[in-house]
């Protein structure tokens, strides 16, 4: 049989998605269901003084107006970073207090969505506003809370001794995920007090725990169902306030409630990538050996939670630098809680650092690829541990070859084509290999099929397909003989689909239970009276092409399973890396999110890549276009080159969008995100995306777990923005240190 793992398999969920058979959360409906619409506060700070619900309650179809006065009381839940499952500890309608612009202050329930939206639009609400709200990262604002600190060697002495020095400040704006599938849910209480929530979810098990906690229910009274997700990117990892509102409204109304949060209303009610600022100092010898790295940051958070994404400890793994000093801090602002967004710590950090590395290469007069080669670390500079595997330089070599980097004329403004300015830039892409744990169940059926159950989510990444491949590989089946069911809290616990952990953790869990099921099958077959394998040694049996064999005896898998007393074989187990402490891995069963890495006990693991880009700039209007991009990555074992390619390509597409287009603009008078729709919050369109070449190098990694696959979900986005900024410098001689990189930054 041909290898299944490592071959380009089409997405098993593809046909259902393109034919519309796949049922997303908001595709569901129930008899007697009510439609919810939100009323959002136009003030950022203050309180709700009065709501005249009588003014709309007589309108056609209106069934209920829920305000802070009528909202059922919720139990507290902590934000995910503090061990809970909430998006934010402060949740709307728990009191009359308003803490950010666009905070929900009322929910209107009606027979139709149009009726609910109309009433929500005219509901008279009187606000008492307080001045002084701030939603942007104020210029020069000092850190209010240190969330990351790392010292390697004597960074100050190394800086003093450096012959060449670069000092630069970088800045990134807030950004919103804007998945195609809007936020929302269908909440349904049953007569026994149980609650089922259909909600797009990266973590069915975590959301179940969070919703149960909030409503004071045992976890088994709540079920979260989310088989398909129309884009998540980190925004659908936690229990949003709006989800709780829909559940609460359904409880109050005694009927199922569906809430679809509009695009505009999704901005203030969901999480977002917080604004960030980095102050960098790099010191090097005249020969291009890095000596010192100082990294001071301020990241935006809200008033009520410490949401932090320190990226410094990842940057510290990129190059061999003897002196490093990293201090990362938070600045509080009057916004809803920020949250995870694809490579949350790494995306801004890598933009800043890889820009600074390019600035240093320029200062040294050195080819930026050669500069990186001279600073390649033999082992983890922070912990001194060996790398589980590391192929950064190979990525650069192959990328340079694919791109034609040797043709680069290194002086800024030295390349043109048809009158346009041409710039070539490169940057490192990196993402830590977080090693999580997962459980799974595998059942062999009397039809000769395998069924895999796991509560992990496929957020469009290909999880359905790779888990089927792994099960098929272990069981000698073709992937179409494997049914994978995911995204339901009733299934076996798994980690959040975050941190690029699912392929490795749930993949190993499925591999483990598949092997156990196979062993159990073999054992049982040797005990079947008058069966063909009766009395044989279980180890002498094999399973391939849907057939059990031993010596001359054969039996189809379907017949073999049918012959067993129970008519099925089932295995359930958890996989955890041997270096994960048992105390940590057990947290999986309490809806925790156990995660090790990048440094484990005996090794440090990260995935690396190299990106090369070309920019083409109109010499007059300074319009920035990107004719081509090359990304070469090494991510351990590539389970499915087809879905992995999409992951990496999608990451680079977003990387371009992140670099050139995306910013949630803050109106300082209202402390609001003002460009709250797809017309004004620009994401890249097809026409922006160039010839995009993605290649994956072979990389063997025996340390991270049996399937040896590093997560690829997030690395693609890192590196694109600095590569583009570096290319723009090369084209124009202008260094832009603030995202997005815009026309006005290079106009003069």
């Amino acid at each position, binding site marked *: 049989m041909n290898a299944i793992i490592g071959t380009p398999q089409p997405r098993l969920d593809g046909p259902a998605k393109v034919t519309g058979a796949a049922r997303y959360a908001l595709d569901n409906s129930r008899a007697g269901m009510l439609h919810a619409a939100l009323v*959002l506060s*136009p003030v950022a700070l203050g309180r709700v003084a009065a709501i005249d619900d009588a003014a709309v309650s007589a309108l056609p179809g209106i069934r209920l107006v829920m305000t802070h006065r009528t909202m059922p009381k919720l139990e507290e839940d902590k934000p995910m970073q503090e061990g809970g499952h909430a998006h934010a500890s402060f949740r709307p309608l728990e009191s009359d207090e308003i803490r950010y*612009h*666009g905070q929900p202050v009322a929910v209107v329930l009606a027979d139709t969505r*149009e009726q609910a*939206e*109309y009433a929500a*639009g005219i509901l008279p609400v009187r606000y008492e506003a307080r001045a002084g709200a701030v939603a942007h990262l104020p210029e020069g604002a000092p850190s209010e809370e240190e969330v990351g600190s790392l010292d390697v060697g004597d960074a100050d002495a190394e800086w003093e001794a450096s012959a060449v020095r670069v000092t630069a400040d970088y800045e990134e704006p807030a950004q919103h995920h804007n998945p195609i599938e809007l936020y929302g849910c269908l909440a349904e209480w049953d007569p026994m007090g149980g609650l089922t929530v259909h909600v797009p979810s990266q973590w069915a098990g975590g959301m179940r725990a969070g919703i149960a906690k909030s409503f004071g229910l045992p976890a088994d009274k709540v079920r979260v169902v989310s088989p398909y997700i129309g884009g998540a990117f980190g925004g659908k990892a936690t229990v949003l306030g709006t989800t709780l509102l829909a559940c609460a409204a359904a409880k109050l109304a005694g009927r199922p409630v569906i809430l679809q949060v*509009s695009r*505009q209303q999704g901005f203030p009610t969901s999480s977002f990538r917080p604004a960030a600022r980095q102050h960098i100092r790099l010191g090097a010898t005249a020969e291009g050996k890095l000596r010192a790295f100082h990294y001071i940051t301020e990241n935006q958070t809200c008033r009520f939670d410490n949401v932090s994404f320190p990226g410094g400890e990842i940057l510290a793994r990129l190059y061999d630098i003897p002196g490093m000093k990293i201090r990362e801090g938070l600045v509080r602002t009057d916004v809803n809680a920020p949250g995870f967004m694809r490579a949350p710590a790494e995306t801004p950090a890598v933009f800043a650092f890889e820009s600074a590395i390019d600035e240093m290469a320029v200062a040294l007069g050195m080819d930026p690829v050669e500069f990186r080669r001279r600073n390649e670390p033999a082992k983890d500079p922070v912990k001194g541990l060996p790398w589980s595997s590391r192929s950064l330089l190979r990525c650069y070599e192959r990328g340079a070859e694919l791109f034609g980097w040797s043709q680069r004329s290194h002086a800024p403004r030295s390349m043109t084509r048809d009158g346009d300015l041409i710039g070539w830039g490169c940057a490192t892409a990196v993402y830590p290999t977080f090693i999580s744990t997962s459980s799974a169940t595998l059942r062999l059926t009397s039809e000769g099929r395998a069924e895999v159950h796991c509560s992990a989510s496929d957020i469009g990444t290909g999880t359905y397909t790779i888990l089927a491949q792994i099960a098929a590989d272990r069981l000698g089946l073709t992937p179409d003989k494997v049914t994978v069911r995911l995204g339901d809290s009733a299934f076996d616990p798994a980690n959040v689909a975050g941190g690029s952990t699912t392929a490795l953790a749930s993949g190993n869990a499925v591999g483990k239970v598949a092997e156990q099921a196979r062993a159990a099958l073999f054992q049982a077959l040797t005990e079947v009276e008058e069966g063909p394998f009766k009395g044989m040694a279980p180890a002498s049996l094999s399973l391939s092409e849907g057939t059990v064999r031993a010596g001359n005896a054969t039996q189809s898998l379907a017949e073999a399973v049918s012959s067993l007393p129970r008519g099925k074989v089932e295995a359930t187990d958890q996989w955890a890396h041997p270096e994960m402490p048992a105390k940590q891995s057990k947290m999986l069963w309490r809806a925790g999110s156990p995660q090790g890495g990048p440094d484990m006990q005996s090794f440090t693991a990260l995935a690396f890549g190299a990106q090369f880009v070309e920019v083409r700039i*109109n010499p*007059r*209007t*300074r*319009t920035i*276009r990107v004719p081509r991009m090359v990304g070469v990555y090494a991510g351990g074992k590539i389970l499915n080159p087809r879905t992995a390619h999409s992951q990496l390509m999608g990451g680079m597409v977003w990387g371009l969008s992140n670099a*050139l*287009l995306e910013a949630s*603009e*803050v*109106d*300082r*008078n*209202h402390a*609001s995100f*003002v*460009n*709250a*729709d797809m*017309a*004004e919050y*620009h994401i*890249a*369109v*097809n*026409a*922006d995306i160039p010839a995009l070449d993605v290649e994956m190098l072979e990389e063997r990694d025996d340390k991270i777990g049996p399937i040896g696959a590093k997560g690829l979900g997030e690395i693609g986005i890192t590196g694109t923005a600095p590569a583009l900024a570096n290319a723009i410098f090369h084209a124009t001689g202008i260094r832009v240190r603030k995202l*997005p990189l*815009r*026309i*006005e930054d290079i*106009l*003069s």
Partner: protein
Amino acid sequence: MQPFAYHRASSLEDALRHGAMEGASYLAGGTTLVDLMRIGVMRPDRLIDLRDVAELRGFDTGGETLRFGALASMAEVADDIVLRQDYPALAESLLLAASAQLRNMATVGGNLLQRTRCMYFRDTRYQACNKRSPGSGCAALDGVNRQHAVLGGSERCIATMPSDWAVALTAFDAAVEIAGPQGRRTMPIDSFHISYGEHPEAETALRPGEILTAILVPANRAGRTSCYAKVRDRESFAFAISSAAVALRMEGGRVAEARIALGGLSTTPWRATAAEALLRGRSLDESSMKEAAARAMDGADPRPGNAFKVELGRRTVEDALLRAARRAEEGDAA
């Protein structure tokens, strides 16, 4: 969305009769109006759907006057071979706008009536918008105003007119044909869009109940060497940060006729007549182009968020002039 009555008009007379009622609004492609109704910015009591009104359809680019029925779709007009060859600026202004799906739905008449993209206008959570609620103020003046106008604004409003098509039409002295309860009239396009002044809520010269029925463009040989330059962050599906429609007629290496109109920079389509005059009789070189481009932006009144648009506007004019000049050379060579 506010409940509304719907009437599908069978003829222009029928449409005008229903359109005279209180709270009526005409519906053509729906790509602006329906959006704005969904988000509560426009709240008509009744919609008069014009789609079945036959005389508003079709277009003719063959005669001495090009005539575009108001209901002709952006897509069909942009695909017209005569327009593409003889008036590339007009065709490009349509092709560079919106997306293929929207161009199939949107009409060339409705295009001139589309509402501004000002974010404060389009979000009812912001109370201050003189366009949405006259007298309430303007949140954009000291708000986020990167995309706002540096030309033609007032202390009451600096929202840009978003149409690309209107800008190109302005360069060609187009006119619009209007039918109303009092009969029909025709007016030049540069008086159709109104400078905001005290009343930014009034955007066009249309009176209550009137329908824009057609767009007229006098034939012009300079059309062949015209172009529409559109600057935007995104390659497609974005409104202009700045744009310029330019048409040139060259004689003996000198500019015999120049037509320049600006978009994305102004509250109305902005004809740069002083810049046109400056170029007349001169050769097109770096210095004449730069002078003309600077003149085109005379009177600009920027804010901190859009100060770069004064320089960008100049560069856009230069870019458009260069491209039109290149077309003139290619035409001579052919």
